[in-house]
């Protein structure tokens, strides 16, 4: 326990320790207990010369040094890698970094995740459950929307139930369908009944899609939320400007007077804008630019290890590709080190054909690493009776790195007498027209906040996005068991078994986990890594401040 906190504490900056402190108190601890707990872990609140760099455990590149107490004031501009007229203020439609960032600026959720993706109370100051099936959320008192209206249980009911309306086009509708009922049991308490038990509900509710809106909101020309910044200007495809919400429910936060968020699709233009001082923060930096940015002296890059992966899909419901031996042959043909070094220039972690990345709280240590082994690949290829065969492999720029991975695999395949013909298709329309539709293809899976979500959405037998069409009843059973299990140790064991199953029998090859690379102006303080994505898991707005 103590040890765990120590690890955790080492990754915190002062701002975050304060957040954890609030979270711990939200769970009914007194301030003194909470301080004692954190003190034991070497976490100090206030004072100077605090702690290491945020995200130090995650980042290889130097992160900004914590420089004492946060300073209020200042204006910054952040740029994400994509923007278009599809930009939205409606959290349920968020689909890109710039959307998530904007939503986290203007709205808050019932819960929030820390750097280890553990959920903590946010707008809900406390949550309890009965058998992981019926959940009660007690709302924080005194929280107001930007227009002054107090937060009530009705707002929460509205914000959660709207996702089920098919006409709305919510990105998380399939997740929201597990809410059997959401009702207000008092003005400050909400009860969520699920169709099946799910111990991960607090994690799910921390996703930006489930941020809390005002009851009855239908127009999204401006944002009225409870978030750290108020919406001053929003123009889709142009920019969003937020000014500090003086009545934010976290005392003392946020620090900046104003944040402007824009999108610059061209990477070179984004880096140039950063180096010329026009923007202070950017995401999706090319590994090649990282060196140049680090050499500038005034700016730096930050690598965030994440569970983002581009995977090789071997459709299990097709012949002959779906045979067990052919699948294994393909998995042995992935030269993971080379993919990491050549395709991602070192900004990636070697994967092991299962979707939980090293460092995740449910990662199974000790699962033997599948290596690059052409002898074994050849053995399985011959056993599958496919030596000398010709197979098309479909790749696309939409799945980051897949074009290069396909080329590498083509070379490996040639050495063992398999002729892979690389079929490159455009990024535009890939997800509707090609993804999961070819015997050999590629997918690109963004980080999901919980192990349950990733297994449910991409590996469960009847999942819509079961990429390889893999069916395994034992896996499905373990999944349901793990979802309902609220004991963390037992859960970790179940997730471990599932990782073994996917590693050994699954139909996808996961060669590497790809890192996110951000660039920032060194005057930005309090910045760090959250494995969900760049820009501190898209929630940097409330954490950062500008050094004088």
């Amino acid at each position: 326990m103590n040890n765990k906190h120590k690890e955790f504490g080492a990754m915190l900056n002062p701002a975050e320790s304060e957040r954890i402190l609030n979270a711990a108190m939200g769970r009914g601890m007194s301030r003194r207990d909470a301080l004692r707990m954190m003190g034991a872990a070497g976490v100090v609140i206030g004072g100077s010369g605090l702690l290491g760099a945020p995200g130090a455990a995650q980042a290889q590149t130097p992160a900004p040094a914590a420089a004492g107490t946060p300073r209020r004031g200042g204006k910054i501009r952040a740029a994400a890698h994509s923007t278009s007229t599809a930009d939205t203020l409606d959290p349920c439609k968020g689909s890109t970094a710039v959307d998530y960032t904007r939503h986290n600026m203007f709205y808050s959720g019932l819960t929030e995740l820390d750097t280890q993706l553990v959920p903590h109370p946010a707008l809900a100051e406390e949550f309890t459950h009965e058998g992981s099936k019926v959940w009660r959320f007690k709302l924080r008192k005194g929280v107001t929307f930007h227009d002054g209206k107090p937060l009530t249980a009705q707002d929460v009911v509205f914000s959660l139930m709207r996702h089920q309306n098919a006409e709305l086009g919510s990105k998380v509708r399939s997740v929201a369908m597990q809410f059997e009922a959401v009702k207000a049991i008092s003005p400050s308490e909400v009860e969520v009944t699920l169709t099946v038990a799910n111990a991960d509900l607090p994690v799910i509710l921390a996703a930006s899609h489930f941020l809390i809106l005002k009851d009855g909101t239908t127009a999204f020309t401006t944002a009225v939320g409870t978030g750290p910044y108020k919406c001053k200007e929003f123009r889709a495809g142009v920019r969003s400007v937020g000014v500090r919400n003086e009545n934010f429910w976290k005392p003392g936060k946020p620090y900046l007077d104003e944040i402007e968020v824009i999108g610059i699709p061209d990477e070179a233009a984004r880096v140039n804008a950063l180096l010329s001082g026009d923007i202070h923060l950017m995401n999706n930096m090319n590994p090649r630019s990282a060196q140049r940015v680090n050499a500038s002296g005034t700016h730096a890059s930050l690598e965030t290890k994440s569970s983002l992966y581009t995977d090789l899909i071997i459709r299990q419901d097709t012949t002959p590709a779906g045979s067990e031996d052919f699948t294994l042959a393909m998995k042995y043909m992935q030269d993971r080190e080379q993919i990491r070094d050549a395709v991602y220039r070192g900004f990636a972690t070697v994967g092991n054909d299962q979707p939980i990345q090293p460092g995740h709280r449910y990662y199974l240590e000790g699962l033997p690493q599948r290596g690059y082994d052409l002898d074994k690949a050849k053995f399985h290829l011959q056993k599958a009776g496919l030596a000398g065969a010709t197979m098309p492999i479909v790749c696309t720029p939409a799945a980051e790195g897949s074009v290069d991975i396909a080329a590498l695999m083509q070379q490996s395949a040639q050495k063992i007498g398999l002729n892979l013909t690389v079929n490159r298709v455009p990024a535009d329309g890939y997800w509707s027209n090609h993804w999961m539709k070819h015997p050999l293809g590629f997918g690109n899976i963004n980080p999901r906040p919980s192990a349950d979500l990733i297994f449910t959405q991409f590996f469960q037998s009847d999942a819509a996005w079961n990429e390889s069409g893999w069916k395994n009843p034992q896996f499905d059973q373990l999944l349901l068991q793990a979802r309902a299990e609220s004991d963390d140790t037992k859960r970790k064991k179940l997730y471990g078994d599932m990782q073994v199953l996917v590693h050994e029998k699954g139909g996808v090859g996961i060669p590497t986990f790809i890192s996110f690379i951000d660039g920032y102006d060194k005057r930005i303080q309090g910045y760090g890594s959250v494995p969900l994505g760049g820009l501190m898991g898209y929630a940097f707005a409330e954490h950062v401040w500008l050094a004088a």
Partner: protein
Amino acid sequence: MNATAAKLILNRIGIGLLTLLMVSLVVFAITGLLPGDAAQSSLGQSATPEAVAALRAKMGLDVPGYMRYFNWLGGMLTGNFGYSMVNNLSVNELLASRLPMSLMLAGVTALVSVPIALTLGIVSAMKRGSLIDRGLNLVTLSLVAVPEFLVATIAVLIFAVQLRWLSALSFASDISTIGQFLKAYALPVMTLCCVIVAQMARMTRAAVVDELNSSYVEMAILKGATPTRVVLRHALPNAIGPIANAVALSLSYLLGGVVIVETIFNYPGVASLMVDGVSNRDMPLVQACAMIFCAGYLALVLFADLAAILSNPRLRQ
């Protein structure tokens, strides 16, 4: 102005309108051919068949195509381009914030580039065959041969990243002083000038040289007119037709063809709006942009025609 000229002008305007109508048909048909629709692209990876069907019904994509065409055409005639399928704003509203920016960029670029191009063209025509002529040719041709993203990126590296004189992005939204205006427009306008000056200068040179070789110019020279007077007073008025054409073609590029410059400088113009529309399958937006570009192009060509007609003494009198 005599009846012939008036008839010619009316004729041109009529043809322009007819072309626009045909363009509307083509634009509508072609946008219908794009694979995928707004419902699919807005759901992306989360496009399950039922979700797509529900969203499609809500967006009105289940109505037959010809009905949608007539509704759209009717709307356009009354100045209503319909509603964006992606963010529910009216297309007019989206255009209202972007079109003035595009016109501003095009206008400033035209103001800078046209005088430069005409001067360069006339000077090299006057000194044709000389070292100046060949030097100008070399410079303008090399500039037009370099892709604009390279010009833009190099300019940003030099002026914004190294020297820090200008900003790498064009913050055209919040301009209140002349200084800010220059800062915002200097780099984009410079990049665009590199692209369009060469073409206009070359055409001007060719047109003027053509006139300079004719016998009436020889006559003017023989009667003792100075070279400047020969060019400006005698040759140039007769070269206005082809020059106006070259200018119109180059300027029409400024309206819709500046995607790269808008992207690199983060300039909120109509070209990037249309690219957004295409990638989001936001047909009303794509159609409106396509129509505006076509209308702009036709207007410029019409203007060139009018200039040619009105500058022709045989038609004017």
